């Protein structure tokens, strides 16, 4: 998958990373308590595409994102964003964590949370400025949550909370977005809103990597897909990669007959 623009130069500077690639992962291994969760991941994301990261529970999907963003230590390997380390290119990357990762009973309004997306641009010890709050408000509008800006976050529904998280990532104004299960446990209206948002980001030329668990909608939502189960089983255009054979390799015995049947039915109606 890796594109070697100039192997000599790459060797000279000690990397195998391409500067035009939004996210390139080279030889990455991640371990929790001595047990490896991800093995030798090599992957280069396609620029400006919607990419689904799919795999069974415990496949290391969230860990992949967290290791890319330096949130969990890597046992080996390196990650580059347009050729630079995360530390250098942080401003280019937006992050939507899993909704369950925070305590929603925190004393904050929806607008407060979205404004946090701008904190990275505000110097130490200074409060958010008026234009930060205006930008945050604009992001809330984009996810259809402007009416709820002042509402305490625990009084939002699960889907609304998810949209607040998406708006916070939008407020980061990044070129690459990582989203961890944005579709999990949301209502129909939120699902529609998220899909519309993904399409907008795609149209604006952003690269979006989404951890996704619903096999039935993969073909509909993503042009590219990464099949992950502790290692990258397959990656590439959805039409080529998202096949029964690859799914079988990814899920093994865990892909039940029912899932496959449902997938086949859904797929038959949707494949272009």
């Amino acid at each position: 998958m890796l594109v070697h623009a100039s192997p000599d130069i790459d060797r000279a500077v000690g990397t195998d990373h391409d500067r035009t690639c939004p996210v390139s992962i080279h030889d990455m291994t991640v371990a929790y308590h001595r047990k490896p969760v991800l093995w030798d991941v090599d992957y280069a994301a396609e620029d400006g595409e919607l990419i689904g990261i799919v795999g069974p529970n415990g496949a290391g999907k969230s860990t992949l994102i967290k290791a890319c963003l330096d949130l969990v230590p890597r046992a080996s390997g390196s990650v580059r964003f347009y050729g630079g380390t995360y530390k250098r290119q942080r401003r280019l990357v937006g992050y939507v964590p899993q909704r369950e990762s925070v305590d929603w009973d925190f004393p904050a309004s929806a607008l407060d949370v979205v404004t946090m997306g701008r904190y990275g641009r505000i110097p130490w010890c200074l409060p958010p400025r008026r234009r930060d709050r205006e930008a945050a408000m604009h992001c809330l509008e984009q996810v259809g949550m402007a009416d709820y800006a002042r509402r305490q976050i625990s009084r939002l529904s699960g889907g609304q909370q998810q949209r607040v998280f998406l708006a916070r990532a939008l407020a980061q104004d990044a070129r690459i977005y990582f989203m961890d299960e944005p579709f999990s446990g949301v209502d129909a209206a939120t699902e529609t809103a998220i899909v519309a948002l993904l399409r907008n980001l795609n149209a604006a030329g952003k690269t979006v990597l989404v951890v996704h668990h619903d096999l039935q909608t993969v073909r509909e939502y993503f042009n590219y897909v990464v099949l992950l189960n502790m290692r990258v089983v397959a990656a590439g255009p959805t039409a080529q990669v998202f096949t029964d054979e690859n799914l079988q390799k990814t899920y093994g015995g865990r892909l039940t007959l029912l899932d496959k049947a449902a997938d086949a039915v859904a797929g038959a109606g949707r494949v272009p």
Partner: protein
Amino acid sequence: MTAGAGSPHEIPPSVRERTARRRWVAPALAAVFWVASACGPANAQVGHGRSPGEGIGTPRSLADNAVTWPSGAQLTRALLLRDYNTRIVVLGTTLLGIAAGVVGTFAYLRKRAMLGDALSHSTLPGIALAFLLVGHKHLPALLLGASASGILGVLAVVAIRRWSRLKDDAAIGIVLGVFFGFGMVLFSLVQQMKTGEEAGIQGYIYGTAAAMIERDARLIAACAALVILGSALLFKEFRLVCFDPDFAAAQGWPVLGLDLLMMGLVVTTTVVGLQSVGLILIVALLIIPAAAARFWTDRLVAMVALAGVIGAVSGWLGSTLSALMPRLPTGAVIVITAGGLFFASMIFSPHRGLLAGGFRRWRLTRRVAYQHLFRALAELEESAGEGAACSFKDVQRVRSWSAGALRRLVSRSVRRGYIDADALPLLRLTPVGRTEARRVLRNHRLWEMYLIKYADIAASHVDRDADEVEHVLAHEVIRELQWSLAHAGRVPPSPHPQEVSGP
């Protein structure tokens, strides 16, 4: 635990003079003293100025347990801060309450409040060791020892959590117990020293706010200023780290460093508060004001400020009460006062309080009953034609109500103009009632359809589930549903045409 001979509450005149000469060091504090001293002379022996032998830890027989109630004169003296000692103690504990409330809010929201307990208990070996090394009650050495071993305790918790699979509660329990035990062993050595000052060390365990002198109050004032300044400057950073540390790290904030700064403020507050509240109870002053403040507000700024106020009020009320009844230990009274404020908040808070919650549940039950009645009437009308009346029996056949409950419900509906009074004992909807009943029925059917369409619940089970959700979900959710389902063309016509927001 009983204190030995000698009372720590007596302040030698020399100390008083020395501290008085150094007032320029804290001009703000001096100004407060100046205002307070204008209220009256500062020489009486009420409250915290006690005769020897009446100290907190002095052994007494069980028979001697009567509480001496203060006279009116004593009450005014204490409330108006007429006594120098009372002024110092009240000021010191109030400032401590502010500091603990403010920094406690962040510790509470970071879910680190119990780490404060491990921290405070871990200070004991440091205090005892410092005393053993220095040989007398040298405050800077004791505070340094307390801070050092307290920080060591926190680091031990962090290390256990990091390098083992133990969870926080176990790690805190282990460190707290071991450090405190170690402190008690060293403490027994201290008690064997015949310096006459070992009783002062006792105060660090249970707290002797009454022994506070101006120097201690100044130290607390400096700590409160540090905590308020630090929290104000790092407000944005603390908020982010408390809410979502992963996101903070992804944005490049040094989460560990911010945690350490936050813990540093907790350490400072704990250490300066040891003398007055004691290491066993200080954690309560960190947690309780924050937890109480959470009941009153959903905004972090307000919560921090309110926790400071609740801490201050606890400190002020608690120390005043214990000044009036000198046998009561100040630290304990402060914590009990804070506890009282907490329970009052828990019961009476308008949004999260028990009373408000009970009232809301009662209202919900009533609304559910109304909606059941309306739905039953609307469905009966649907089959029998508009304007048809039905009997109590008909309704009871559709919905299982006791006769009494249904009668009460109907008479309330009649009073509100939903059911035609002239038709009684038959039940007929008024035009207003009909509009409402159809709205309820429509919401219900929307839900039924949603459940059939999206949740893969067998149609035979839908009715019961719909009963649950339609009463719980808010109007905006129902509007979202209408929007997503309107294009299906299966939504029953709305009684309010203006409500339809779909295409």
